[in-house]
């Protein structure tokens, strides 16, 4: 199949390899932005203002890239849960779903692994995360139940 055929057939992004690459690009850029920010702080502490300045600017730029990836993914759903996103009420549902997943499954499982390997402090950190994530889900849930009325009152 040549390129012209591909265009004529209007390829489906959802589930495609490109979709998967976009999700990965979103992960990579998001994590890169945080890495830059973290290391910028370290540079500031060391008194390396110029290095800190550049790292901070790169962090900002990386965040724009991450959101660029999200621009391209959002039409076919949330990159984390796959749930449809668009309007805020819908977005809240996607966020609640991922926070519950993290609070109930992801972090508790990480905690178990850490505990089994003897990293008790790290296990506690993951458990602390699980609790706060469940709290986030609850906060989002309250907002979601109030609907758009929450912003009109």
């Amino acid at each position, binding site marked *: 199949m040549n390129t012209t055929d591909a265009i004529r057939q209007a390829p489906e992004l959802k589930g495609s390899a490109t979709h998967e690459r976009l999700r990965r690009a979103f992960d990579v850029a998001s994590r890169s932005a945080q890495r830059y920010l973290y290391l910028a*702080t370290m540079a500031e*502490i*060391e*008194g*390396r*203002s*110029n290095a800190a300045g550049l790292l901070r600017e790169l962090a900002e730029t990386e965040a724009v890239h991450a959101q660029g990836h999200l621009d391209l993914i959002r039409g076919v759903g949330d990159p984390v849960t796959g749930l449809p996103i668009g309007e805020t009420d819908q977005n809240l549902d996607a966020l609640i779903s991922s926070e519950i997943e993290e609070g109930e499954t992801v972090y508790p499982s990480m905690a178990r692994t850490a505990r089994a*390997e*003897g*990293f*008790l*402090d790290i296990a*506690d*950190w993951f458990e*602390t*995360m699980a*609790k*706060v994530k*469940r*709290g986030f889900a609850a906060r989002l849930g309250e907002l979601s139940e109030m609907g758009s009325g929450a912003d009109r009152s």
Partner: protein
Amino acid sequence: MSTAKRSDNNKTPRLAYDAKSITVLPGLEAVRRRPGMYIGAADAKGLHHLVFEVVDNAIDESLAGFCERISVVIGGDGSCVVEDDGRGIPVDLHDEENKPACEVVLTTLHAGGKFDAGTYGIAAGIHGIGVSTVNALSEWLVLDVFRDGTHHRQRYERGSAVSPVDTIGDSDRRGTRIHFMPDAEIFEGGEGLSGERLAGRMRELAFLEPGIEISLRDERNGRDERFCFAGGIPSFVEYMNRTRKVLHEAPIHMVEQVNGMRIELGLQWTTGYAEDLSSFVNHVRTSDHGSHVDGLLSAMTRVMNEHALGRRLLEKGERIQTMDLLEGMTGVISVQLADPQLEGQTKTRLRSDEAGAIVEEAVAHHLTSYLEENRAVATKIVGRALEAQRARIAARRASEQARYEVARAEVNEDVYRSQFGIRSQNWHESCTWLTHENLLEAHAAASKMPEDGLLLDVCCGSGVVGASFRGRVGRIVGLDLTPQMAEMARTRLDEVQLGNIYKLPFEEGVFDGVVTREVLHLLPEPERPVAQIFRVLKPGGQFIVGHILPFGPIDAPWMWRVFKKKQPLIFTMFQEEDFRALLEGAGFVDIEMTEQTVWESIDLWIDTHETPNIHRHEIRRLFDTAPKMVRDVHPFEILPTGEIRDLWRWCVFSARKP
């Protein structure tokens, strides 16, 4: 440098300070409408900024060589008078504005001598808000000018002149007096001007400008102080170190004048851990430092390493890191330059590659020869930095080591002994809570033990908790792992044993009560020591345990990071439900909890060997950048001096063995 160029181009003779030297830039009305844009915010900080701005003008006169005395008086009515013996603000007619020059200065934003490079080569008020902002934000302001043998006066209300410049009479003195009343419409509520806060700044200025005498009087309470320090920056450093033990006698002192920029530096190392570095640009504190400090640190690290290598004070491959050199260092760096570029939200960071490079070169040059000439001091400083480096590595090892031992279901006693043995030297000074009386009383008040009962204070430290039960029980036994701690506890308790909480050296069911405080988070698998406590209690015996807990799940991760950076041996950041579950899991019943909050000085708390210097900085950052959600639930405050006070939620649990 721009100073030289600007001076050349300027036609105004430097010493002529009259109406011609007042430049006019646009309007003032906006100040009252949006004071935040000019003074940061209409809060306590903004209010004090008004005084600083007027004082800065007097300092400019001093920098230009015309002022020796400044007096600040806080009136009984909350007003403020700032008076200097400088040249006096010009009162002659300003050509362009067709008004007296002083009125132009007081009623026009960005008007004043300091906007004309010929009048003041270097001006203190780098914020450049000018005294007109102070006028705009004052209910009334009275200006008295003593100049050319005459006393002039003009009155203003909310930024506008309400009288002409009146001649009051002859006068043989010289200077400017500004008496203003901060406008209550703008600065609502609050406690007015703080003598303490003003004193801090006046003291600082008197150190930075050793020729000047600043007096401060507070008519509300009779406070009367005079700041005049001939010793300048070295005295400033000595003042900062007044309660610390210093590593070497005189501070290292440097004054350099390069390309129109003046750099003055004072450095002195202490035997403590706290790093205390103040930086100034044109006498204004740059709390976020910037290029001048970067230059200093870079030169200091490079020169120290070169010196240490040259004298073979380092092992092969060893290198002193900036963070380790900063531990225990007290320093003041003050630079003066024309047109400094300041950045950051509050304009408290200098950004100038050129200034940074000049500082770096000057410091490197000076420090190299200083170290050569003072080898004994150099050896001490290098030794101190290497010690800091080893402690940093040890802190990392401590938590790794403890993890390793857990895998073997053993607790490495040495790790705890070394961590707390060193700290025992200044145990009670190491934080507020240890000897906080209300907190100790909260533990003792929970007692339901018989008056002749036997109490065990486990991990007793210096024994203060156990001792607070004196009179409520018959006999108090302590137990601690660290010999130094046990020694201290013996002065307070009836008997103290050395031992490990994981295998308490007592028979089953012998104690009427067990008490412990802020220990379980340091112990891997806390259910094991809690089971031991349960075992040694008589049936019906009481366990009283105090612990700092987060206010909720939201501040828990933030506290986790703060506490782990402070003390690498932390294993658990308990939340209330965890603590209850821990007690219930061991078989305890009738669990009750009382709560109280205690303000803790974070600066004091992290001033210890167990916290590496880089972690101290990171902890400060965590407070500086705490997210709103955290700040909403967890109160803390960062004082104008940078000191951090954190509100800790102390929970005292009482539980009974059935």
